[in-house]
C-alpha cells in the first residue's frame, strides 16, 4: 500500500493554523521534555549512587555533651558510651566519628600527594576519623591489607588530632593514586606528612553529599575521636534489629550518663532516613520534572485529538466522497495517520533546535551540562508514538464514516 504523501501535503496547506498550532505544541513539548528527561536521568544517577556501606542496618546517634568537658573527660565518656553500645542487645558494633557517608553539604577535603612537596595533590579525598571498629560498623570489605590495630589509634578531637600514622583508603582512591601498581604498603603525603597505606577497602561514599568528582575517595585515619561537644555514634545493628535499636538506643545512653542531649526529634535516625534527607532536593526535582513532563505529554496528546477530531468532522463529505470513489477504510486511516505523522515530524524538527537553545540558556544560567542528542531522539520517539496513538481515535472515526456522508449535510 503506497501512501500518497503529495495530496496529503497539499491538503495540509489548507489548514495552516491547525498544522502550525499542533507543530508548535509538539516543538515546545519536545524542548521541555527532552531537557527534563536529561535532568531527571542525571539526578537519578546521583541519588541512586550506592553508599557502599551496610545501609539498612545502620543507625546514627547525634550525641551532645552537656558542660565544658576537657579532652580527657570527653575521651572517657565517649569510651564508656561505645563500650555500652557494643554490649547492647541488637547492636553488632559501633564507633564515634564527626561525620558519616553522605551526611550533608560541607566537606573536609584532604589533598593526597605522591611526593612530599608536590605542588598540587594527585587526588582530593575526604577523611573519616576511625578506630579499629569502623570497618565492621560500616560493613565495608577489606580488599587488601589489614585493619587498624587498637594501639595504632590515637585519641583526638576534630580541632586537635594526630596527623601521623597509617591510613586505610578506598579502592577508588587506590586506583587514582596508583593506577598500575599495588597501593598496599606505599607511602603517600597529606600536607607534607608521610602516611603508609596499610589497608584498601571496598568503595565507600565520602561525607559531603555534594561531592561528585571524588565521591568514593575516602581515607580512614586512625583517630579515637571524642569532641568536647559530642560526636556522631555510628551504630551497626544486627540484621533486623535496626528499628529496635533506633527506638531504644537513646534511653540506653541516658542510663550511662544523663548529662547529654540527644534531640527527641532527630537525635537518633536510621541511615536510610538521613540519606533520603540529604538527597531530598534532588529527589524533589525528579518528582516535579516527571510530573510536569507527563502533564505536558498528555496535554499535547489531548490537543492533537481535539484538532484532529475537528478536521475529520469538517471533512466528512470529502472522506465520504473518497470512500464512494473506492477508497478502503484502511486508505482513510493511513491518510489521517500520515497527515498526523508529517505534522509531528515538522514539530519535532523545530523542537530539536528549540531543545538545544533551551539547553544553552540553562547551561548559562543554571549550570547545566550539555544536552546529549540521545535525549532529543528519546523525546522525539516518545512524541511520535504518543502523537500516532492520539491520532488513532480520530483516524478510526474517519475510517468508520460511510460513503453516504458525501450526500449528507456538512458540519453540524
Amino acid at each position: 500500500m503506497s501512501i500518497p504523501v503529495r495530496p496529503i501535503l497539499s491538503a495540509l496547506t489548507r489548514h495552516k493554523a491547525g498544522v502550525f498550532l499542533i507543530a508548535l505544541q509538539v516543538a515546545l513539548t519536545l524542548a521541555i521534555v527532552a531537557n527534563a528527561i536529561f535532568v531527571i536521568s542525571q539526578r537519578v544517577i546521583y541519588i541512586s549512587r550506592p553508599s557502599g556501606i551496610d545501609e539498612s542496618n545502620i543507625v546514627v546517634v547525634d550525641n551532645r555533651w552537656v558542660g565544658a568537658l576537657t579532652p580527657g573527660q570527653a575521651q572517657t565518656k565517649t569510651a564508656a558510651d561505645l563500650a555500652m553500645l557494643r554490649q547492647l542487645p541488637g547492636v553488632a558494633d559501633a564507633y564515634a566519628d564527626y561525620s558519616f557517608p553522605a551526611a550533608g553539604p560541607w566537606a573536609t577535603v584532604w589533598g593526597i600527594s605522591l611526593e612530599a612537596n608536590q605542588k598540587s595533590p594527585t587526588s582530593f579525598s575526604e577523611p573519616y576519623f576511625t578506630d579499629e571498629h569502623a570497618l565492621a560498623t560500616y560493613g565495608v570489605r577489606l580488599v587488601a591489607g589489614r585493619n587498624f590495630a587498637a594501639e595504632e589509634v590515637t585519641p583526638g578531637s576534630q580541632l586537635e588530632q594526630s596527623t601521623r600514622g597509617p591510613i586505610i583508603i578506598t579502592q577508588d582512591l587506590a586506583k587514582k593514586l596508583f593506577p598500575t601498581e599495588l597501593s598496599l604498603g606505599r607511602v603517600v603525603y597529606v600536607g607534607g606528612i608521610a602516611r603508609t597505606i596499610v589497608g584498601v577497602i571496598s568503595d565507600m561514599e565520602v561525607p559531603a553529599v555534594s561531592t561528585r568528582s571524588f565521591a568514593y575517595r575516602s581515607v580512614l585515619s586512625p583517630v579515637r575521636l571524642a569532641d568536647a561537644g559530642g560526636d556522631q555514634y555510628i551504630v551497626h545493628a544486627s540484621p533486623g534489629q535496626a528499628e529496635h535499636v533506633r527506638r531504644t538506643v537513646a534511653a540506653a545512653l541516658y542510663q550511662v550518663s544523663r548529662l547529654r542531649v540527644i534531640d527527641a526529634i532527630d537525635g537518633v535516625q536510621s541511615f536510610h532516613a538521613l540519606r533520603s534527607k540529604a538527597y531530598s532536593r534532588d529527589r524533589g526535582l525528579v518528582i516535579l520534572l516527571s510530573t510536569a513532563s507527563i502533564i505536558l505529554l498528555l496535554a499535547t496528546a489531548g490537543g492533537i485529538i481535539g484538532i484532529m477530531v475537528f478536521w475529520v468532522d469538517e471533512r466528512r463529505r470529502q472522506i465520504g466522497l473518497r470512500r464512494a470513489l473506492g477508497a478502503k477504510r484502511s486508505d482513510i486511516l493511513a491518510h489521517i495517520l500520515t497527515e498526523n505523522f508529517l505534522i509531528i515530524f515538522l514539530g519535532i524538527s523545530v523542537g530539536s533546535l528549540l531543545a538545544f537553545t533551551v539547553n544553552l540558556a540553562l547551561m548559562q544560567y543554571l549550570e547545566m551540562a550539555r544536552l546529549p542528542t540521545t535525549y532529543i531522539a528519546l523525546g522525539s520517539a516518545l512524541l511520535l508514538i504518543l502523537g500516532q496513538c492520539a491520532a488513532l481515535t480520530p483516524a478510526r472515526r474517519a475510517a468508520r464514516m460511510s460513503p453516504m456522508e458525501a450526500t449528507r449535510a456538512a458540519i453540524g
Partner: protein
Amino acid sequence: MFTYYFNLGMRSLSRNVVITGLMILLIAVGVAGSITTYALLSAVSADPLPLKSRQLFIPQIDNRGADRVTNDGEPDPELTLRDVIELRANREATGQAAIYPIYLSAVPTDTRIEPVAAKGYAVTADFFRMFLVPFQYGSVWSKQDDDEGSNAVVIGRDLNQKLFRGENSVGRELPLEGHVYRIAGVMTEWNPLPRFYAVADVQGFERSPQVFLPFQRAINLKIPTAGSTFCALNYQGKGWDDLVRSECSWISFWVELPEAKAITRYRSFLSAYAEDQRANGRFNWPAYTRLRDLDQWLQYMKVVPSEVRISFIVALGLLLVCTVNTIGLLLARFMRRGPDIGIRRALGASRRAIYAQYLVEAAVIGLAGGLLGVLLTLCFIGSLDLVFEAKIARIVHSDASTMALAVALAILVAVIAAAYPVWRASRIQPAWQLKTE
C-alpha cells in the same frame, strides 16, 4: 448584552464536555503550576530586610592569593578572627555585627527537666539592632557587656518557654555549658528563612536560634564554631590557638553604612587595610577586597536554590504549551459553530457582536479554569514539601492575593488564547455558511 453572552458562554460549556473539560483542566494546571512556583520563587528571593538591605554590607578580604578555597576566584565568604578584630576598630560603620554559630546545652536548675540543646549564635550587640530582632522581654546586653564579654545572654521564646514557662525571665540565671549566664532579653519568635545573616554557615537545622551570647564572651571561652570553617587544603593546625592564628575564616561579619559617602570611605578603608597586610608581609599578592550589600550578597551566595528557578521555568513552559493547546482547541470549537455564526451574521449581527460573544465565552472557560486553578494551587502549595525541603516549602503561604492572581492569569490566558480563534470566527462569511447548509 454582556450577561446574555455570559449566559450563552455558560450554556456552551456543556457542549463538547470532554474538550471543554480538557481546556479547563489544562488552563488550571498551567496556571496553578506557574502561580505556585512564582509564589515559591518570590518567597525565597524576597528581600529579608526591605528597610535596611541597602545599608548592610559584608566585607570580604582575600587572605589566600592563588590558594583560594572558593572555586570562583572570590575571597572566602567569612573572615578570620584577626581581621574581624582589626576591622571592628574602624569607626566608619554605624553598626558592626560579627556572627558565628554555636551549639551549647542548657542544664535547668530544676533537675526534673532534662538538659536541652541550645543552638544559636555568638554575636556583637549591634546584631540585634542591625537585623531588627524583636524582643518580648528586656533587650540586648550593654556596650560594656559587649566589650568585656560578660555573661549576658539573649534567649529565644521556645527556650524561655521550656525553662521558665514563658515568664519574664530577664535578670534570672541560666547555666550553659558549665557557666552561669544572666538573661538580658527574651526574643519573640524570630526565624527568618533563609538565614540571611549567616548564609555561609550551614547547620542543618531550621528551628529558630535560641541562644545569643556576646561575641567576645564566646571568644574568651574558646567556644568553637558549629558552622563552616574555610581553611587551606590540608590545614594541619591543632586546637583553638592554632585556628585563630591561622588563615582559616569562620566568622560572618556585617557592617552598617547608612549613606553613599560612608560606603565609599569604607571601601577605601578596606582596600587600605588589605594593602597594609601586604606591606607587613602577611599577603604577597595585590590587595583584593569585596563589599557587597545584603541583596548582592544573597545573590552571590545563591540563596535561591537552582531547583526553584528550574521549576519556575518549567511551569512557565507548561503554561505556554497549555496556551497553545487552548488556541487549537478553541479554534476547533469555534469553527465547528460556523453555521451558527453564519446564521447570526445573516440575521444582522455585526462582526463586533460575534467578537464579543466568543471572547466572553473564552473568558468563561478561563474563569472556570481559574477557579479550578485556585483549588489546584492550594493543593500544590500544600504538597510543596514533597518536592522541596521543609525549610523552603514552609515559607510559602497561600493568601487571597495569590488566589486572585491565579484567577486573573487564567482569564488572561483564555482571552489571549481566544484572540486568533475569535478573529477567525468573525471572518466567517454568512453567505458561504448558508450555502453549504
